């Protein structure tokens, strides 16, 4: 380039030359863009990406450092079953009874629907119901009752003392209520569902009324995290 040409280049109007920005100005433009992008990704992940969530959405998350209390009780299948037999799989633990007029059938029906929604993933999920009415709920009665909901469900029934010990530990209150109904006495009981993860930790508690779709979504999260 000759001196004349270089002089010409230096006199090129500023409008033609690319605008230069100071680092501070660049940061001022970049920062809100980054924040908005972060917020957008977060919102999308929360609403559409169950694999990218912070955690389950519908159950209350527990952070216990200790595994849930293990127990071994006679099952409706004829042999004793322990909670620890299911290590490596998910357990949904419920305390109910067969003469329950409404709460138990509703809950078990929702769990059945949830397992159907999970499809093949339900192979790693076990629903266990421990009877709070050992006086009436024999293994045979449990077998027939649970068979109406889902052949995969497991019914356990123990002695009154053992049932009290286990239920107390899982935050379950139950109490006999005398009634004039044809069903005989009823059992008032806490109707929460406890999810125990693969390592045996009580991980989630679902209140009564949790829908099948909500159960399935949270179970799927725990299966994959």
């Amino acid at each position: 380039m000759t001196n004349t040409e270089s002089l010409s280049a230096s006199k090129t109007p500023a409008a033609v030359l690319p605008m230069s920005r100071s680092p501070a100005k660049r940061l001022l433009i970049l920062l809100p863009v980054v924040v908005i992008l972060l917020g957008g990704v977060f919102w999308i992940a929360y609403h559409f990406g169950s694999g990218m969530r912070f955690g389950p959405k519908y159950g209350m998350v527990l952070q216990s450092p200790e595994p849930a209390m293990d127990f071994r009780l006679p099952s409706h299948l004829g042999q004793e079953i322990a909670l620890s037999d299911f290590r490596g799989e998910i357990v949904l633990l419920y305390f109910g009874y067969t003469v329950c007029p409404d709460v138990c059938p509703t809950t078990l029906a929702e769990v059945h629907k949830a397992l159907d929604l999970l499809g093949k993933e339900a192979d790693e999920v076990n629903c266990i119901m421990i009877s709070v009415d050992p006086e009436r709920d024999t293994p045979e009665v449990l077998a027939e009752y649970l068979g109406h909901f889902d052949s995969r469900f497991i019914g356990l029934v123990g002695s009154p003392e053992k049932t009290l010990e286990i239920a107390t530990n899982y935050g379950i209150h139950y109490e006999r209520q005398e009634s004039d109904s044809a069903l005989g006495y009823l059992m008032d009981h806490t109707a929460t569902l406890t999810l125990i993860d693969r390592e045996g930790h009580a991980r989630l508690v679902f209140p009564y009324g949790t829908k099948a779709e909500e159960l399935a979504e949270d179970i799927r999260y725990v299966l994959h995290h």
Partner: protein
Amino acid sequence: MTDPAGPDHARERHGQSRLKWTNLFYGFTLAAISAVLAFTYFQPITVLPRIHLAPGFSLTNQSGEKRTSEDYRGTVTVYTFSFSRCGESGVEAMTRMQKLRQRLRETDKGKMKFALVTLTVDPAHDTEAVLREFADRFGVGTEGEGDVRWDFLRGDPARTKYIIGGGFGVYFTHEAETDSAEEDLKITLEQRFVVVDGWGIIRAVYRGDTFEVDRVMRDLRWLMSETKNSKGVASLAYEAAHLFRCYP
């Protein structure tokens, strides 16, 4: 149509555009990492961990009324364990509960409900009448419930063992009392105070020497804040606090 400024200029503009997107990507990643670290370090939101399910129970209080664990749903409850014939350390623990109750009464609790519960580890001796008298020593019963109820509960010994020992994990032993009134009672009890939230989840456990009223009030304020603010999008921030700070 070619770039009137020439192919070099086009390449330079393309390069600048790629540089801009690269800057954006690195800035985004750095911002995300910084946000997580800042959240963990500065703790703009503090939460109490969700430790364990509180035990279920059905007991009676000092007035002979039935109280079950379901009655405390929706209420933040502070539990302690004692007995009417407790010594000096037992009285000291109960006095601290009394101070906590007073502080709670003076605090703006919004819509949140609070209750105190003392479970007797000596139900054979602590009948309802004895519990009434015991409660009266700490100002309970004479002025009515007020807005921070304090129940003194008893049940049969087997249930008591499951609830206190198995459920709350509090160690106590009870040997048959001697005939002599001067003899020390053979009840060994580890002093514990437990905070249970409205969901029935244990959120804090204090040993006897760590139960300071100021500290407990601070923790209860965190719980109040979480209960009040953890709604909608804000709930994500609270779950993030649980995720990053509470997992064992």
